[in-house]
């Protein structure tokens, strides 16, 4: 069975005829070549496939592609648009650039969802919000520091915009 999916992916509207049983992760990776969304487990265990659907974090491995019908999907590739890295990405690059990087896209998107909902999260909130994203290399220190740095620079950007 195939159906038509209309969806906005990384700011671009698309229509694709896709099988009913296609998972969002496979649509993104195999269909659109957006391989920044990682598969780390056999379903729902590791968080590596986290994407944003209408600003909320979502596991692409346990979501049907047709369930994002009419919605706005953002993957790691779309976070910075066509420009440079976002402050959050730069902070992860700075603090965690030497780690293996496999959990990083999902971790960044979970953090992005947190910062959109709560621009100034505390340390415990950051740990909680990212606790479904398993990381084998780092432990929390660098990850929390990266999110805190990003929150700080967002605040400064907002302040500068306000001053203009």
């Amino acid at each position, binding site marked *: *069975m195939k*159906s038509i999916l209309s969806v906005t992916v990384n700011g671009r509207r698309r229509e694709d005829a896709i*099988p*009913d*049983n*296609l*998972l969002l992760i496979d649509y993104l990776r195999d269909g659109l070549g957006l391989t920044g969304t990682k*598969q780390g487990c*056999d*379903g*729902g*265990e590791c*968080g590596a496939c*986290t994407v944003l659907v209408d600003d*909320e*974090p*979502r*596991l692409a491995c*346990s*979501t*049907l592609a*047709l*369930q994002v*019908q009419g919605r706005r999907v953002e993957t790691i590739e779309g976070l910075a648009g066509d420009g440079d890295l976002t402050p959050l990405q730069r902070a992860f690059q700075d603090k965690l650039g030497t780690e293996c990087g496999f959990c990083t896209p999902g971790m960044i998107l*979970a953090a992005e*969802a947190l910062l959109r909902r709560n621009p100034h999260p505390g340390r415990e909130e950051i740990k*909680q*919000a*990212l*606790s*479904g*994203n398993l990381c084998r290399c780092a432990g929390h220190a660098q990850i929390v520091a990266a999110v805190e740095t990003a929150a700080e620079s967002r605040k400064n950007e907002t302040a500068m915009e306000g001053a203009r």
Partner: protein
Amino acid sequence: MNALPDFRLHRPATLDEAVRLKAQIEHPACVAGGSDILVNLRRGLAKPGDLIDLSGLRDLDAIERIGDELWIGALTTLARLTRDGAVAAAYPALAEAAATVAGPTHRAAATLGGNLCQDTRCVYYNQSEWWRDGNAYCLKHCGEKCHVVAKSDRCYATYHGDLAPVLMALGASAIVARAGGLRRLPVENLFREDGAHYLTLAPDEILAAIALPPLNGRAAYVKGRVRESVDFPLTGIAAALKREGDVIAALRVAITGMNSAPLMVDVSKLIGKPWNDETATLLSNALRSRATALATTLAGPKYRRRAMQGLARRLMDQVWAHG
């Protein structure tokens, strides 16, 4: 890898349409947040020809006051339950329990209805097709034999939902939609103590909402687990207490993570007495006779029983102190 079976996906826009579909289709399965069923389908634990996606039913994600009850639509996400002002004000135990479910990204997708109706679990069941095939399958799916209780005639897979015991302690009702309209039943009656057939819903029924009566007293939920995120409860206890002076005027206790269904615990012997060592022993005995933890999880049953006893005592100390 772990591809989903072939199915036709139905995306009804209204509850009526969903109920109609459920009545028409033979052996349909339902998906909402996907965090339970899609994971299981990827492991080959069912092969439905039709899947009904309930996530488009806008009429089921409302939280509203109806009379003196709070109605929560079955499609309300767990993330919303943790943040909703009306829920936090009237039933903080429910918001707190929702916050303990899985991880934050699961909670953003997972729904109240899906959490209640989630499949039972077992180390011999939540495995790949290859694994189960090499183990002659099991009584819950495709097999002849239960590997947990030899020679048993029913499946002993365990129910691990966090919200059911809280709703049961709160005396909530399940609102079920079917062709003729709605029916209402106590949440505990949604479940049956049989791991393979743990829900009492008829094939043409859909869980539509939960109706919570006013809370007269104090409720709380406690969950035993190894990691403070992601993990299912190895044991979970909910209690709703009405304290009058120095006696227990009313008490409802429910458990999860122990049996094939979330269960009410008979605490009638505690009513009219103060909470002290004597009533703690009575509660302990009541829990012991109700819970039958078996080797369905990697942490052994002995541990789950011990943790249940200790956590129940701690929980009661807490609600009694604040009650």
